[in-house]
């Protein structure tokens, strides 16, 4: 089951560049939350702070508090523990090129020392079914490389790989921006199904996509969160002038 995320006074830097400033928000459990905003507004940095990926950049720095469920992730846990609870799907599909489809999905478990074969088989099947890829690949799980799939399939493979470690939160950083419309709609259907089991945070440039999949939407601008509310309110009756300008296409 998913858990809620509470963010208090989050600040992040790239070198001297203050990319996130005093972010405060509560992301509800078992819902999809969309983050929108123009390029460079800090929304990607924000999701990378939720699984402590931001600090893997040598010049990245973070202050503030992020709570996932009851866990204060910057105080009480190591980065690798957090990343097992918070899965991430990246903008460009990034399957492990030398691994089969099966090994790609099992990678997170295998590399953390999990080796029960029968259980792995089950988890791989369940994850691929959850990511709506099972029917397309079940016959060549171990024969084909992850890199031999189409772009849309690769992205669903990456989602299966993230689901296999059984996270509570799923972060998606523009998961469909490199895909064609058919693949995009498959990913959106998937998000719709997955949010009953996981807390989903999706960064997107596509406002229709945010409107279609998310209950809550946050609007980021220049490293600050301008507005966070129900998706319906953001898109029909935003409280902030800047949100309205962005939604209506006046900039960005």
């Amino acid at each position, binding site marked *: 089951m998913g858990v809620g995320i509470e963010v208090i006074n989050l600040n992040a830097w790239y070198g001297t560049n203050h990319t996130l400033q005093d972010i405060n928000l509560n992301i509800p459990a078992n819902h999809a939350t969309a983050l929108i905003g123009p390029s460079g507004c800090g929304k990607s940095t924000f999701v990378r702070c939720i699984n402590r990926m931001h600090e893997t950049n040598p010049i990245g720095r973070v202050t503030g508090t992020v709570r996932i469920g009851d866990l204060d992730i910057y105080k009480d846990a190591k980065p*690798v523990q957090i990343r097992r609870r918070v899965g991430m799907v990246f903008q460009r599909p990034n399957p492990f090129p030398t691994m089969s489809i099966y090994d790609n999905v099992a990678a997170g478990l295998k590399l953390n020392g999990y080796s029960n074969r029968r259980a792995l088989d089950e988890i791989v099947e369940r994850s691929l079914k959850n990511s709506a890829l099972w029917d397309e690949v079940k016959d060549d799980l171990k024969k084909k490389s992850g890199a031999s799939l189409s772009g849309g399939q690769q992205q669903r493979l990456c989602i299966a*790989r993230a689901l296999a470690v059984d996270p509570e939160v799923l972060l998606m950083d523009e998961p469909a921006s490199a895909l064609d419309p058919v693949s995009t709609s498959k990913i959106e259907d998937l998000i719709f199904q997955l949010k009953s089991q996981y807390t989903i945070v999706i960064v997107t440039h596509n406002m229709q996509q945010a409107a279609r999949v998310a209950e809550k939407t946050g609007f980021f601008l220049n490293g600050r969160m301008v507005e966070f509310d129900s998706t319906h309110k953001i898109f029909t009756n935003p409280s902030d002038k800047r949100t309205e300008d962005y939604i209506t296409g006046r900039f960005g």
Partner: protein
Amino acid sequence: MRTISDGLVTSLAILATLVVIAPLVAIFIYLLYMGTSSLNLAFFTQIPKPVGESGGGMANAILGSGILLCVASVIGVPIGIGGGIFLAEFGRGSKLAFAIRFTADVLNGVPSIVMGLAAYALIVAPKIPFLPFTGHFSAFSGGVALGFMMIPTVCRTTEEMLLMVPHAVREAALGLGVPNWRSVLSITVKTASPGIITGCMLAFARVAGETAPLIFTALGNQFWSTNLNQPIAALPLQIYVYALSPYDDWHRLAWAGSLVLIVLIVLAVSLVRFVTSRGVLKGAS
């Protein structure tokens, strides 16, 4: 106009390709011409005959080269790959990495005869306490000299191949909660492995033909020997000795030895390629 320049560039490229291939083909044909006449079963099964007797072969030198290259690879490949992993993954931007990279580049340019002399001065001439095989000419010291010649090539190719692995692949591993060291060994190195293997094979092929480092270390041997503690024969050494001799019979054996050396290197490289490529899945290049 466009067709003319297109044709010009294409023919220049073809010409350049021919210039690259021609010497290789010429050498190989000449070797075949000079070497095949002395190639017979005895060449592969017998040891050299004493001066004055005709016939004999280089079986001991073929075996000796194999042993020397095994010792060299056991030393050169792990150290080289380990150094390359450090340079690309852990020491990026550090002073130590800079020093290692600089040393590797200099070591790569050191003439092979100097490597042989260094090995002689460090482990052949002095007997080092508790270290076996030292204090005299030995197969081991020859292997060490060749192994150290492999290190810089293996190290720098490994580094470059690892740096070519896309950042997205590393992020994917980190995003799964895989510890960094595990991600480096199981994901990054595995992804770069075809290139790393090529680097190892290049280094292997390069030292397989080296004569100079062996003169002061493995020394050469006219008899069967598989003992790491004793001087050992090697194909390049044997070719060197036979080619400089005043006997026609030995000259022919030297040609045959050169041919066998080249064929064996090609076979070894192809074998490793074949074995390692079977595990890698299609479409994964």
